């Protein structure tokens, strides 16, 4: 079971689910279980929770494969909270900074042969969430994704 901790009283106010795991692809399923449980706990329905899980999975796979790189030790800290009617997923890592502007948006209408191989992960994150913001600072990278409960 994922270690979902409820911390009433801490900032931000309200329920808060936190998980810190090693940067390893084998932790993706554990992250998925955690986010599903947290998202439902924060009031999302099953379909919305599945979509937040997917956005988080794409984000964490990027961190493991690209920010840290496969086989490089590091930690990923995930926090799910409620801000008003927004479910906010915050993901922190200390890997290489990520510049989303360097990722071209995939053309999802072209034929098999012309399909781009990359860029789909970020595309999914933006499609599934209401906002996706990357902040890179010397002390680490923060990804903040918001999903409104009603949309």
């Amino acid at each position, binding site marked *: 079971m994922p270690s979902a901790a409820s911390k009433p009283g801490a900032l931000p106010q309200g329920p808060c689910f936190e998980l810190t795991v090693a940067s390893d692809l084998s932790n993706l399923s554990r992250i*998925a279980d955690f986010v599903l449980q947290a998202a439902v706990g924060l009031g999302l329905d099953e379909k919305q929770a599945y979509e937040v899980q997917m956005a988080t999975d794409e984000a964490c796979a990027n961190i493991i494969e690209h920010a840290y790189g496969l086989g490089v030790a590091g930690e990923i800290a995930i926090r799910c909270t409620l801000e008003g009617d927004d479910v906010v997923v915050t993901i922190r890592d200390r890997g290489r900074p990520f510049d989303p502007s360097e990722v071209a948006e995939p053309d999802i209408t072209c034929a098999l042969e012309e399909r781009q*191989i990359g860029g789909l992960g970020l595309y999914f994150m933006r499609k599934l969430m209401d906002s996706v913001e990357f902040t890179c600072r010397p002390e680490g990278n923060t990804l903040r994704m918001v999903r409104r409960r009603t949309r």
Partner: protein
Amino acid sequence: MTAQAALTASGQALLAPEGRLDALTAPTLERDLRQALTTARGDIVVDMGRVSYISSSGLRVLLVAARLVRQKGRTLRLCCLSPRVAEVFALAGFDMVFPLHSSREEACRAGHLGLPPA
């Protein structure tokens, strides 16, 4: 996630991966698909019925495999997508580039008849 291919009587390969198809498990499917491509004479059919989740990593593997299969003049066919997996395909526009079938039988029959991709 293991999906070693079974060969049908007409030389098509049938793979049935299970569980999450994410960045961890996608490379295993890629290996199994490449192997199926060398052993099968006909189309490759992937039964997605037991795949509970697919991420961009899983889609990438299917895309790469579909191109390899196409280069050999054959087709990669998918069947039995769960509603959740079908939604991801639609989101990526992958429902337009893969022949999707409702059952293994339909996919195998289409392959046997050499039908063009949908």
